């Protein structure tokens, strides 16, 4: 009787991968069990379950395990093989200088996610200490990200719940802005292009069949996601713009946001009056009140009256 040896699943998976990679011909599970003696259970059903699990885990890691139905003496039996060129990275030869340049770029813009680091390692690079100069950290750790990115590359529709509705979305692209990830795509429910904030997805994200759609040519992902300024203009309030006096301490920031062309007049004290969009009253109010008492609506009178009413309502809360 052979002595039982406890094999851990990771070791068995590596041995299975090695075996399938080096054998020139597809091999059956029976043969695999013989070759990896003692590593799979002696019970055929248990061994089959272990093998299926290993196969599924390896496929999950991006290793395609091909199945072949044999003929001849073994007619009807399923055999398995792995072709190294189908999963190994051999496509690009980066020079040491290119690898170094990528490392430096990666130290400058850091994605707080495994994807970018794993990509670096696969390219043969390494994480290096950031050098002098500006550095950017982008959160890239949303649990839905992997499946969304895979769907974009495969042109496979996504299904998820958003704002209480079940959506099917042809994913076109993603944008990282101000600490959030946005998904841009065609929403089958609304029959139009829509933007979804990824952290607000309320369910699991499932991927449909690939090659189901095309990404519109010339689509600008950054422009597809409205910025604060565009949000303030996206509404149906009858007054499209308002003139707002901004204290000198905040003039630089507001100029950066709306450009010098938004300045209507400048005061001797350094203050300035800006003409800004206010069609979306909610977005306008959020922007205005961020400046607390450093900003005042000058006109139109109706917008000014609205601000007074909002403030009176809050002043009466207690």
């Amino acid at each position, binding site marked *: 009787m052979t002595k039982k040896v406890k094999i851990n699943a990771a070791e068995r998976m590596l041995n299975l991968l090695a075996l399938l990679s080096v054998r020139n011909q597809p091999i059956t599970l029976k043969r695999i069990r013989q070759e990896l003696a003692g590593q799979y259970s002696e019970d055929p059903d248990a061994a089959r379950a272990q093998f299926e699990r290993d196969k599924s885990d390896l496929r999950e*890691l991006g290793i395609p395990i091909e199945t072949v139905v044999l003929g001849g003496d073994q007619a009807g039996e399923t055999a398995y093989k792995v072709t190294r060129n189908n999963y190994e990275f051999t496509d690009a030869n980066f020079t040491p200088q290119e690898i170094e*340049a990528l490392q430096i770029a990666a130290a400058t813009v850091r994605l707080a996610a495994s994807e970018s680091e794993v990509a670096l390692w696969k390219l043969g690079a390494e994480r290096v200490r950031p050098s002098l100069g500006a550095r950017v950290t982008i959160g890239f750790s949303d649990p839905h990200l992997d499946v969304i990115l895979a769907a*974009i590359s495969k042109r496979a529709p996504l299904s998820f719940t958003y704002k209480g509705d079940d959506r099917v979305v042809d994913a076109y*692209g993603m944008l990282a802005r101000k600490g959030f990830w946005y998904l841009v795509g065609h929403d089958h429910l609304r029959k139009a292009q829509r933007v979804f904030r990824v952290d607000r997805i309320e369910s699991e994200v499932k991927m449909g069949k690939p090659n189901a759609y095309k990404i519109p040519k010339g689509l600008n992902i950054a422009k597809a996601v409205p910025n604060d300024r565009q949000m303030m203009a996206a509404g149906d309030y009858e007054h499209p713009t308002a003139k707002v006096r901004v204290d000198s301490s905040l003039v630089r920031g507001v100029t950066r946001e709306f450009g010098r062309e938004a300045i209507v007049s400048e005061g001797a004290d350094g203050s300035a009056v800006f003409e800004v969009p206010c069609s979306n009253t909610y977005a306008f109010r959020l922007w205005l009140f961020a400046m607390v008492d450093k900003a005042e609506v000058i006109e139109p009178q109706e917008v000014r009256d609205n601000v007074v009413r909002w*403030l009176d309502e809050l002043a009466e809360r207690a």
Partner: protein
Amino acid sequence: MAKKRATKAKKSAKKPAKKRATATKPAASTTRTRATKRRGPRSASERVAGLLLILPWLMKRKRVRLPEVARQFRMSEEDLVADLQMAAVCGVPPYTPDALVDVFVDDGWVIAEIPTLFSRPLRLTSAEMYAIVAMVDAAQRLPGASKRTALTSAVAKLRRLTPDSDDNPVKIDLPDDPLLEELQRSQQESLELRIAYFNPARSDVSMRTIRVGKIFSERGHWYVLADDDKSGAMRNFRVDRIQSIVRTGKTYDQVDVARRAESEADREWFGDTLESVTLRVRDDASWIAEAYPTVSRVKNRDGSVDVTLRIGSEHWLARLLLRGGGNVEVIEPAKYKRLQATTATEVRAKYV
């Protein structure tokens, strides 16, 4: 150290004997190779995924110090050694030395000199490809970014590998600021600066002399972490709140300031010393729960959310309450329950 050397024995040992050296150890709280940050023992799949990254990386370098490999892959040395020991006994039957993974740990070094099995990395997934191209794209758009041809050609090679070679569908929108270039130059040349800085917590502008240690972007804003003469410590300044910059003509010890900036950067942005406030937010004020780091979030039956966050100043809270409008209220502490009303009254005074 004996354990680390154990894998050298693989050259002569038979398979079953080697199994004994491969017992996995439950990882305490180590960061996972794929940054999953889950606690508890690692799954077989996680360990294999890690090894398929580490082994080709090692075989390219042949000899790397153990702590360096552990640091690079964000693993504990204990986990790393366990995984390498396991890999060293893996291979192809009949498991002769030339059919095993050639890796071993010896005297603090990880050695993988003969590329046998697993010498080439897995292909990049689309997510990894998109991520690295987006990252490099963003790095190239930063002020003062390197225009080196090596990066340009690396990007061209990467682009050829992506499913969307003409335009990466993953973009990073970086904030822009005209002062950034001057701040970078002052850091590179160790030039001390005099700045006028608007402090929203006090709603005033103060003059400060700073020595830039780190420039970084988070949540859509640029910040400078600098040695500040006014407070005598390292301080974060939001770049869009800097009103003006003038060089003082003095230089400073960049190494010292950068080192202090690095250690300061590890500190929590909001320490325990700051005051905690609990707000109840609903409907169109729900963004408050998403926009700031929170201590806790509790969803109530009526759909509202009780958010506890740390506040930098009363003025900061007042501003938040004003913006939140009728859909935010202070739960505690009681002293802030009327803060929204008094702030609204103060701002209302402008509209007489």
